[in-house]
């Protein structure tokens, strides 16, 4: 075991015979996250060389704040993807939770902490409905959550009359929930760390892998795959809603249109680039986290260079394709290592 551990920490160690490329390849094969980490560092170096403002304090802060929603949503999606399901509506939950919170605060005159809880309960209910319809009614989650996407999009606009609203005024809670410059980043890091721990070290995590890897076999072994799937649907929705609340306090505005298709598709891309299998059974939150950072750095770096959003999309598309081809190739290399 100690041998595999060291191999994980220092990719390619102990293979002096091979050249640098060979060693790198071995490293990439051993640790899925290593490849995406290499890409991340490479991108950072490139953008810093192209524009020295990239690693300035100001830009790092803006990167850190901009990445928060993507990192958190990609992490939640990661667990759901691993257990073999998907949530296309999580971007709309991202917009929905702050709206419900706002209405509970302004129209129902609840105190803010209670209003926040009501907002989170609303997105938990969304996750529950997604999960129950998918698991018990047998509708593919792609369709369930596509329907939920439009339902919430309509609700978000209807509930607000289509206009952005201003968040409740500053107090300690709003500071902690996003107004303080680093609060969102701290939340994101804590969430990634906790979720990775849950995934790698708890029964819930193990059963999440098992459910996605072999649903029938898991059921035969007595794993309650319905509970695992519905739980991860709820988790994904609540995380999306929670980071939506954080984001709304950061920009002091509640935007009914914040949940467009862009955000959820980017987060799925982040998880997939980070090594999560769309068919379930494989992936890590750490990988999804790195994948989200890569996407955010790409956009930020291109913006600094004055490259348009159109070009960004072209490059993003190519990046996803390359990442996927690499994943298949790496999986084949791993397969070749057997027997």
């Amino acid at each position, binding site marked *: 075991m100690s041998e595999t551990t060291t191999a994980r920490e220092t990719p390619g160690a102990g293979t002096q015979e091979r050249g640098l490329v060979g060693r790198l390849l071995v490293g990439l094969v051993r640790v899925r996250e290593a490849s995406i980490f290499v890409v991340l560092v490479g991108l950072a170096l490139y953008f810093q060389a192209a524009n020295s403002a990239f690693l300035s304090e100001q830009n790092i802060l803006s990167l850190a704040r901009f990445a928060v929603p993507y990192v958190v949503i990609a992490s939640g999606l990661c667990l759901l993807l691993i257990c073999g399901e998907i949530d296309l509506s999580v971007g709309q939950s991202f917009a929905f939770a702050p709206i419900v919170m706002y209405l509970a605060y302004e129209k129902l005159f609840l105190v803010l902490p209670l209003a926040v809880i009501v907002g989170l309960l609303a997105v938990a209910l969304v996750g529950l409905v997604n999960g129950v319809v998918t698991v018990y009614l047998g509708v593919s989650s792609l369709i369930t959550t596509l329907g939920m996407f439009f339902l919430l999009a309509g609700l978000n606009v209807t509930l607000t009359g289509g206009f952005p609203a201003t968040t409740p005024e500053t107090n300690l809670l709003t500071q902690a929930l996003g107004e303080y410059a680093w609060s969102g980043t701290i939340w994101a890091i804590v969430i990634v760390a906790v979720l990775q721990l849950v995934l790698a070290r708890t029964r819930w995590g193990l059963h999440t892998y098992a459910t996605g890897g*072999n649903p029938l076999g*898991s059921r035969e072994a007595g794993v309650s795959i319905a509970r695992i799937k519905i739980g991860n649907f709820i988790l994904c929705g609540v995380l999306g809603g929670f980071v939506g609340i954080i984001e709304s306090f950061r920009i002091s505005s509640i935007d009914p249109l914040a949940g467009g298709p862009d955000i959820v598709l980017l987060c799925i891309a982040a998880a997939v680039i980070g090594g999560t299998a769309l068919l379930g059974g494989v992936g890590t939150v750490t990988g999804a986290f790195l994948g989200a950072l890569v996407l955010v750095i790409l956009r930020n770096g291109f913006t600094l260079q004055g490259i348009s959003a159109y070009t960004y999309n072209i490059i993003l598309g190519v990046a996803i394709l390359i990442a996927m081809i690499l994943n298949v190739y790496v999986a084949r290399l791993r397969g070749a290592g057997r027997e």
Partner: protein
Amino acid sequence: MENGNTNGSEFLRVEGVVKNFGAVSVLKGVDMHVKRGEVLGLIGDNGAGKSTLLKTITGFHRPDGGRILVDGQEVNLRSVSQARALGIETVYQDLALVNELSVFHNMFLNSEMTVGPFLNNRKMKEHTQRYLEDMGVNIPSIDTEVARLSGGQRQAIAVARAVYSDAKMLLLDEPLAAMGAKEGALILDLIQRLKDERGIPMILIVHNYAQVFDVCDRVNLLRNGRIEYDRPVAETSVEELTELVVSEYRKARAGGSGE
């Protein structure tokens, strides 16, 4: 085997069990019993309902009629976990192993050892290592993903897992399917040892009748939703069993050749 209530007394009794899937009636009143220390071979044509019968005994399916008695007590199994609590363990045809997980995580799937909220990986590894050695199962490393193992190794792990948690009875669905001669011998050997050393009663679904004679004490034929033939292995032969199954086929062909 020391105390009087072991070998020879009845462990499992199935009475008039019925199972329908929609309009299709698969089990139409199955009567069956297994004694302690006895290995029962269950044969029957494809689609006869052998796997359905096994999954009904193991709590995966709920019967639509009849009763199941364990140790003389009627039980109402609602889940696989309930059957496991009674000591009835199953090795399914698909083995119920998760390819993406390591050997030791598969060994403890759904009965993981924990420290507080966390998995106790070290303890699970120790137990797996020791246990597989005891059972004479050879695996290159218990850290490897199950996907990397051969069919025989996977089957051995599935059997070891089923027996591990103090199994009082073992149900095996085609344990020798899709296996080479050498690997098949390994599994037969494992089954034989479980029978000799632990006296665990078993039901084995088998297709190759020669193998029935290697390890089974008694053989049951499931046909038309019922057990139509029940005989000790000593009183029958491969030829007779083959003839039993084939004659039905000939009859069906003769009756249906009206075109």
